[in-house]
């Protein structure tokens, strides 16, 4: 494990590579994409997971059944589902536009072919589709660990509905939520599959993120040093995140 890290650092040691990257428009767009991907993708996913975990606390047989269906994206391997989404979003023959045409009579756009923002949005939604169930289950387990007595005590004091959430549930979940968000940010940063298979970095290389651009530079243009430099440029973001995460994990003694 240490060997690849050290070797990677050594490969990306030349400052000239970074100067070259900074002046490249594809790289600049990639940085913007990565930022959007992280900010929108992670927050939407985690907030959705938080809300849905509350929803799945409901009683009833059908909610349990629904949970079984809902976790399916997590169990299905990444590649088949992303390829399916890729085809589904095809402008001419994809399922989504077929539905739009047959039901509403609207000609849908080419989701992945025409506009950078549509494609990036599709990628983010696919990522959320795949990973939100996982975080929902984690947060659900966190909610289950909250003793019922606390809710009863709060109910006696008159806290119901939203108040119950803001004063009882959220303070108890906050630490878990923060740890999950940090971890999820790191995993999303390294997410290769959803970008590569849904949009493939297109149209016209406009939706790459750092992870996919690094691989492209290293293997399609055959300049591994440049690829390593792309990936290494994420270090200023990664190092503080990792330090913060390690601290949080230690203070919490990992009672997730």
């Amino acid at each position, binding site marked *: 494990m240490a060997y690849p890290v050290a070797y990677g650092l050594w490969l990306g040691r030349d400052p000239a590579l970074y100067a070259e990257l900074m002046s490249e428009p594809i790289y600049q767009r990639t940085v913007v994409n990565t930022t959007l991907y992280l900010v929108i993708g992670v927050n939407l996913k985690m907030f959705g997971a938080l809300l849905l975990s509350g929803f799945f606390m409901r009683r009833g047989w059908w909610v349990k059944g629904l949970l079984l269906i809902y*976790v*399916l994206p997590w169990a299905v*391997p990444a590649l088949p589902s992303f390829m399916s989404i890729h085809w589904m979003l095809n402008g001419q023959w994809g399922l989504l536009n*077929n*539905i739009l045409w047959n039901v509403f009579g609207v000609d849908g756009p080419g989701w992945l072919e025409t506009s950078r923002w549509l494609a990036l949005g599709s990628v983010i939604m696919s990522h959320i589709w795949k990973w939100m169930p996982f975080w929902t289950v984690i947060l659900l387990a966190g909610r289950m660990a909250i003793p019922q007595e606390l809710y009863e005590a709060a109910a006696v004091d008159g806290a119901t509905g939203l108040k119950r959430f803001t004063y009882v549930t959220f303070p108890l979940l906050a630490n878990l939520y923060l740890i999950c968000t940090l971890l999820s940010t790191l995993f999303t940063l390294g997410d290769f599959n959803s970008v590569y298979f849904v949009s493939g970095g297109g149209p016209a290389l406009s939706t790459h993120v750092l992870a996919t651009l690094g691989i492209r530079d290293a293997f399609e243009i055959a300049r591994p040093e440049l690829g*390593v430099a792309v990936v290494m440029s994420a270090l200023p973001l990664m190092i503080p995140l990792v330090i913060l995460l390690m601290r949080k994990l230690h203070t919490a003694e990992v009672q997730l």
Partner: protein
Amino acid sequence: MSAEPMASGAVRRRPNYRLRRNLSEAAALAFGVVIVIWTLTPIYNMVAVALESHGNVFTNDIWPAKPSLESFSIVVTEGYWYLEYFWGQFGNSLYVGGATVFLTLAIGSLASFAISRMRIRYGWLVSNAALLTYVIPASFLAIPFYRIMNIYDLSNNLWSVIAAEVTFATPYAIFIFQQYGVCIPIELDEAARIDGASPIQVYFRIYLPLMAPALVAVGTYALLLAWNEYLYQFLLLSSKKSMTVPVALAQFLNSDEAPWNYMMATAIIYALPPVAIYYAFRRRMTAGLTMGGIKG
């Protein structure tokens, strides 16, 4: 009882209360329907395209006009030139998955046993380092890893992929095993030691059987990881006979006229084992995950 005075009030309020409950139940149901649609659309698409007969993929149907199992039979019998090594590739995937599970469990449990039970010196350093490597994205290390494997002449060898997968699964395994191991009283070890058990016997007779739930959870996790992973398999395996199913699938994508119905049929067959295993061990899996660590 204290409920008595409340009862009259409850009777008066009941219709209102019932209405509200029904409304909230209806809203929840509607929300549930939205979730089902959101979750199943891509999977539905996978099935619908796979059932399409060849040549009918490029239509505007929502459901195939003439659903047929033709593409499945072609995949199973390897009846298309892209699919000529399908079962071999499927076997490769199984081999990689199985070896990853076994090695991850073996290395992870031995390491956590050594750290927390035998209390070796600098054990905390190992567990912290494991935690640190757990958060480095695997795709960021792909380039140096690829070069290293080339230097050692291990490309196109399934073991190079297995090595990569085990590297990324083990930190999590150590992490979970340590969390779980805390629950096993150390007195058991001491009792066994007084009876003359060697550390190896303690490991096999006491530690492993008691760790069974965590082993199942981590094993499932490692299998899903190996099954989800594409990048390393793509970089390290290039010959048709040694590649795994995801790499072969992605090759389809790059061909000029991608036969989408065959691809989706292959994808479904490929997705079946992890889904089955996941649902079989689902309870244990969530229990193990919430025990401490998290990783998709």
